[in-house]
């Protein structure tokens, strides 16, 4: 019985590591400067064909990015110092063949744009440059932190009996030097 359970227990133990390793599909670049932590991140591969198809269907499509500033804790769960959500939304009008783009940070609209360019849509949805998301006021000098980003898409075009979870992950470590 114990012999049978051991592999399962081992799998459960290493599952977070495996998931983390397999989920680094978001490239993250943090930069602490001028009292802010600027976070640049982009989704590897940009828009997938499925997402392009979804956008072309006229559905309001959004990419949600949950960004967390965290600090590692030995032998315990890492501590989340701050968290924010950046959402990029696009809606394509098949009649005018134009994309209505918008970005919001924690529900507050940050920018909006109309474009006919698919490449622009791809950049808008999957690439973010130097977003000033966190303050460095509470950061400890010379301490190591990391930014973790989880990307979610909506609506989803797949189905499984367990609809929760999923998403793509990425993280990057930095040392705060004031």
């Amino acid at each position, binding site marked *: 019985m114990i012999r049978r359970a051991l592999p399962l227990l081992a799998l459960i133990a290493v599952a977070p590591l495996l998931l983390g390793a397999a989920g680094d599909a978001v490239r993250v670049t943090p930069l602490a400067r001028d009292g802010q932590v600027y976070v640049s991140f982009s989704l590897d591969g940009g828009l997938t064909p499925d997402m392009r198809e979804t956008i072309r*269907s006229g559905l309001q499509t959004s990419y949600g990015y949950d960004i967390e500033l965290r600090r590692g804790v030995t032998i315990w769960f890492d501590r989340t110092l701050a968290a924010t959500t950046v959402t990029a939304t696009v809606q394509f009008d098949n009649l005018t063949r134009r994309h209505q783009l918008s970005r919001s940070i924690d529900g507050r609209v940050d920018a909006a744009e109309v474009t006919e360019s698919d490449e622009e849509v791809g950049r808008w949805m999957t690439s973010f440059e130097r977003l000033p998301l966190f303050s460095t006021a509470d950061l400890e000098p010379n301490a190591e932190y990391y930014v973790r980003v989880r990307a979610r898409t909506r609506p989803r*075009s797949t189905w499984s009996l367990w609809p929760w979870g999923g998403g793509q992950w990425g993280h990057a470590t930095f040392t705060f030097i004031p």
Partner: protein
Amino acid sequence: MATPLRAASSIRPAPPAPQPARPPRRPIRDNPRLLLAGIVVLVAAFVGLLALASRTTSFSPDFLTEVVLYALSVADLTMLVGLVFVLARNIIKLLVERRRALPFARFRAKLVAVLLGLTLIPSILVLLVGSELIRNSTDRWFNAPMDEVLSSANRIAADYYAERQRFVLAQAARIAKTLGDVDLQSANVPGLQDRLGPEVAEDRLKLVEVFRVTADAGPSRVAPILDVASPSLPPGALRASAERLASHVATGAGETWALEPMAIGGELLRGAAAVRAPDGRITGVVVASDYLTGELAARSRRMTAAYEDYRQLRVLKAPLFGVYVSFFLMVTLMILVGATWMGLYLAKRITRPVQLLAVAAREIGAGHLDHRVERETADEFGALVEAFNSMAEELATSRQDLERSAIDLERKHLEGEGRRRYIETILERIATGVISIDERGAISTVNDAAGRLLGVGAEAVGRQATEVFAREDLSPMSTLLRSAATGGEESPPQEIALTRDGRDVHLAAVATALTGDGGHVEGAVLVFDDVTPLIRSQKVAAWREVARRLAHEIKNPLTPIQLSAERLQRHFGTAPPPTRALVDECTTTIVNEVESLKGLVDEFSQFARMPSPKTVPTVLGALLDDTLALYDGLFAELRFERRFAADLPIVRVDPEQMRRVVINLVDNAVEAMERRGVITVETHHDPANHLARIIVADDGPGITTADREKLFMPYFSTKRRGSGLGLAIVRRIIAEHGGSIDVTDNAPRGTRFTIELPC
């Protein structure tokens, strides 16, 4: 010795009846109201599910896939977990019950399994077939002709809009180019109205608006100069959208366009182009607008909407498939949960009364006759429960009657036991010997007196009486028993003389047959008394009377005889010598014999007129020491040994009579030993029997067994010259003191007299 009598009854009082148990609280699943509520909830959920399913077409695909799908997944998983929990719980319960060998566990499991199987198989089949049907149906939605039609329609509409967009932009660019030489910065631009009027008059455009780019115009950077509208343009065009467009172009972003829905319907397609001065500087913006009628715009929108709906369905095909499968899955799970629940309920419904009856049967078997089964239904099980309760009631009543009878029996038994102990105590204490013989002729009881008198012990109990009494000395008892065994009338007491340990024992015995209710002989009782002392006393009394008469009759003539002889002697004192010698010789003989007779008569008289002892507290050791001191120095070859107990208490005796007893015994011993040997005088204290013992033992020739019993009878003597009254007087003195005297052989030789005196 008596054997203990066995208890007549083994009935024990019943254990105290338990308090009537409160009916156990029904489980939730057995509560009809809750059951009904559960069914209502299930039906309501089912109806709600149907309603939701019927309205799915009105929901947006996004709502279906993001809200409904999640809700259905949650519901499905919850029901699945619930079903697995219920099944796992019941499987574990089944295993436990089977291990405990509880009744109906297997039956209940089978019933649930059958019901579950009956519903599981068709439900799964329906789920699979339904899922496949849904998959095929959704695949059929997205066939090639439909795709082509919708795509073409959308392309037509979009191309039309694109063509109009290009036209408007071209017109805006053309007009902007014509205005390149116009100073749009001046407050009044003369002739501009005239230049733009034809653009509208020819109905190529519905609206032309001109903006100047100015640095102080605020964030919009542009300020309106004029607008020229076609009369056919419906009202409601908003300048704000044109200004926004112009502002955007003024930044140098190039041509751009916008679509503005009108309030009355239709859309205004706007195109903006920058007005550049000859030096290339942007001095203004021209916004040209064309009106797309409401019907055209609506149709275009509908075509596009149909196309988008189609594409959205195709994009969300998998989640939508999941929604419908989740519906099916939910229905399946509801059926399974319902079937499981119903199976458990039915199993409980069937087995619970039987289980309750089984438990109640065990309770009643354990003596708890007040246990009842609650009647839960009015069907056959209810009737069975009612019959069981009636049976239990009758059992309880019978039990109460039995308990009353047992109590009466116990009381009688106790009474009988008391009587038995009373009789047993009497039998143990009385001097009368009692032996009971059962119908098989075996001895059943022997009391102490019987054992002592007959010399039989407890080992005689259980043995055949004929075997026990086959001993030669007990043979007269066999004869008596035989006569009683014939069942005849009670014979009068018979005197039976036995010889025990060389002594004659006289018993007055009577044997009585024990007859049962039908006259059947069930045994016999042999009762006998030791009459040896009585006979002995009678003999002594007779001898005392003889002695008194002899003393009286003989003593009176002795004196005249002696006087006459002395007179003859005196008378013939002068006679011739031969005569005188003869007379002297004869008279002397007469006088001597008369003296001897007088001594004999005195002893007789003394035996007959023995005075009552005058007892005083006496130290026996000192008394014996004083008495034995009389013999000091009298016999050279005789030695006395004194062994007096130190703890001997003071005894009330008549010292003179006791001294005479000791002297008599010692004299007899001295004479028997021919004045040679050792005479031992001992005293012992027997505190258990409150006795003081005096033992006088010698190492002489001893006494034969035949003489031993006669030894204490008057006029029995082994001496050549003895009256035979010495030991008779000794026995009488001891008897007058309440004691006894016995003679046995001394070890290794000689005679041993033992005197027992109460103390």
